[in-house]
């Protein structure tokens, strides 16, 4: 029967079908002693400072070049933890499934969650599943929350940028956003580009090993590099000056942006970070980043200034300069 290929409303009922879904589709793939207990809460012990974060994932399409919604749900939350300097440890995992989702698609997502969690060295310790009527969700939504621990000496915050600090970017921008756009309905174009979706806990650990004195760290996800730098400039009440020529952008991303009238500065990334570090630490942090596979193309892209607090200014390629503002709304392609 074809129905057995698909998730039905009954799979979210809490009854036998729900149990079967959980044990066959989730526990089997993601099992660890904490999850296998199947109690109402996961119970874990800790020493020290905790970082705690949550995020929901609604990406469309759910599969895209270089990743899928499952990998994104693990990496996104792991990266939010890592950006506060935490070592990510445990994740919760909640699914909202639109009835009719193919089992094989769900399985693909769960397998990808397993691989990402393994790479990020985190355990899924609690979870939830809901199934909603057709049209009430778009195939699959995922929420993950995460817990990590922070070393005592690490004090990272968006409000810690100081004039004179150096801005380091871990690699090329726009890869994720353009890869997803390339598969979106009504806009498919062919590109070899893959999403940069990756867990950055390991890269951050190496950076903190090189220097504990990292002042700010952020992953420039939605809104892109421009929006994230503006957030830091405002939170820290400093100016940030970046160099257009120093920002690494792949040819494929540039090409797609030229074609669609988009600006790579505003395109989402899922495996990149910005670090703001004192000048004295910049060299060693950059060196550590370049050694890590997710920081190979790291580059110094600018500096923190006293001038124009709350604003980001970019030296343009032709020797002038301009303001770089936050993204407002969705970037929309142009008419002509």
């Amino acid at each position, binding site marked *: 029967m074809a129905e057995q290929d698909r998730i039905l409303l009954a799979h979210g009922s809490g009854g036998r079908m729900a149990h079967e879904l959980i044990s066959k589709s989730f526990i089997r793939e993601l099992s660890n002693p904490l999850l296998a207990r199947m109690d109402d809460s996961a119970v874990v012990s800790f020493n020290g400072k905790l970082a705690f974060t949550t995020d929901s994932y609604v990406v469309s399409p759910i599969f895209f070049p270089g990743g899928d919604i499952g990998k994104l749900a693990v990496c996104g939350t792991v990266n939010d933890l890592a950006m506060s300097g935490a070592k990510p440890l445990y994740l919760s995992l909640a699914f909202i499934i639109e009835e009719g989702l193919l089992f094989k698609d769900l399985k693909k997502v769960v397998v990808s969650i397993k691989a990402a969690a393994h790479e990020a060295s985190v355990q899924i310790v609690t979870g939830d599943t809901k199934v909603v009527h057709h049209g009430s969700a778009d195939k699959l939504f995922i929420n993950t929350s995460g817990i990590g621990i922070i070393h005592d000496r690490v004090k990272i915050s968006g409000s810690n940028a100081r004039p004179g600090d150096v801005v380091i970017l871990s690699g090329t921008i726009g890869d994720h956003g353009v890869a997803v756009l390339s598969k979106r309905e009504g806009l498919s174009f062919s590109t070899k580009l893959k999403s940069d979706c990756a867990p950055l806990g390991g890269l951050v650990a190496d950076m903190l090993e090189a220097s504990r004195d990292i002042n700010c760290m952020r992953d420039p996800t939605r809104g892109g590099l421009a929006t994230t730098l503006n957030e830091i400039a405002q939170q820290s009440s400093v100016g940030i000056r970046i160099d257009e020529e120093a920002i690494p952008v792949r040819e494929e991303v540039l090409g797609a942006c030229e074609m669609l009238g988009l600006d790579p500065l505003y395109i989402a990334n899922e495996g990149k970070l910005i670090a703001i570090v004192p000048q004295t630490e910049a060299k060693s942090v950059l060196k550590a980043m370049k050694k890590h596979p997710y920081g190979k193309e790291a580059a110094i892209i600018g500096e923190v200034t006293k001038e124009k607090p709350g604003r980001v200014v970019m030296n343009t390629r*032709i020797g*002038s*300069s301009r303001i770089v503002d936050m993204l407002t709304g969705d970037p*929309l392609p*142009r*008419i002509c």
Partner: protein
Amino acid sequence: MKFIDEFRRSDLAKGLVSRIAQRSKNNVRFMEFCGGHTVAIFKYGIRQLLPPTIEMVSGPGCPVCVTANSDIDKCIAFSQLSDVIVATFGDMLKVPGSRSSLQRAKAEGADVRMVYSALDALSMARDNPDKSVVFLGIGFETTAPTIAASILQAQEQKIKNYHVFSMHKLTPPVVKAVLNAGEVKIGGIVCPGHVSVITGSQAWEFVAKDYGIPCVVSGFEPLDILQCIAMLVEQVEGGRSEVEIAYSRGVCHEGNVEAQKLMHRVFQSSPAEWRGIGRVPGSGLKLAEKYSRFDAERVFEIEPGESYEPEGCICGEVLRGVRTPNDCALFNTICTPQSPVGPCMVSSEGTCAAYYLYGGDSRG
């Protein structure tokens, strides 16, 4: 990236900047007609590189901005019809009409979908045979030929549920209207690049001949624009008024004759309402009689209601180059890209949006 990087080289830019500074003696005001040029000028910080003798003003060259409120209201009215999908370029979504916007209509349940070309809208009609698709045809000579092609395809493939609401506009008539109004003294025109690919540089001969104003067609890369300004300065200082091309990789004298034929086959020129400028004879394109069954305005009955302009908004004057966004009391106070009052703040090619986003003059 090939064909892009060459036109953004900083050493060549510096050379052009000093050439402009050396040659420019007399105070002069140049108008860039096209919104794409306005954005490029701000994005690369070109104004700051020019000597104080040169003033740049933006013209009525952003298709979304010049669309009259009455037309925006009609777009929204189409979205209120049952079993109608309104297909539109993304730029139109946020433009406020008299009472609502397409974005708001969509949130309230209207079926409004963003497309990247008219051919996507045509496929949408093919895929939704029980609905009618109304494509919002907006743009200048640049977009009109592809929309004409989509109508011919619909006819050939017997797709009956595809309709176009044509708000297309022609650029030479409006340049004439702005010059005839004589509100701003213009010493040279940065002629639109993409439009001229279709029309050819010949379209601007009347400006040079009848009005004695130098014209140079420009591309959209920083070197194109600097080269164009340098050529305009040389015409001004040499007392010449000619049509020259600083974008020869895209534009020739006659333009794309095939595209022009296609456009004139499907559309016929008509008077059109321009925001801030008013009714300009022969400046619009409506579907020719032969294709009237694809004309959304003739097929559907809509009730757009009475249209009025937002109070205090000076978009109209900004479009004519008479005032700048900094002269507007609403600019960056009540009117921002997050909550735009006028279309010039909405469109990615709008002058107010460019001033806001790239720190035009006062925000720097």
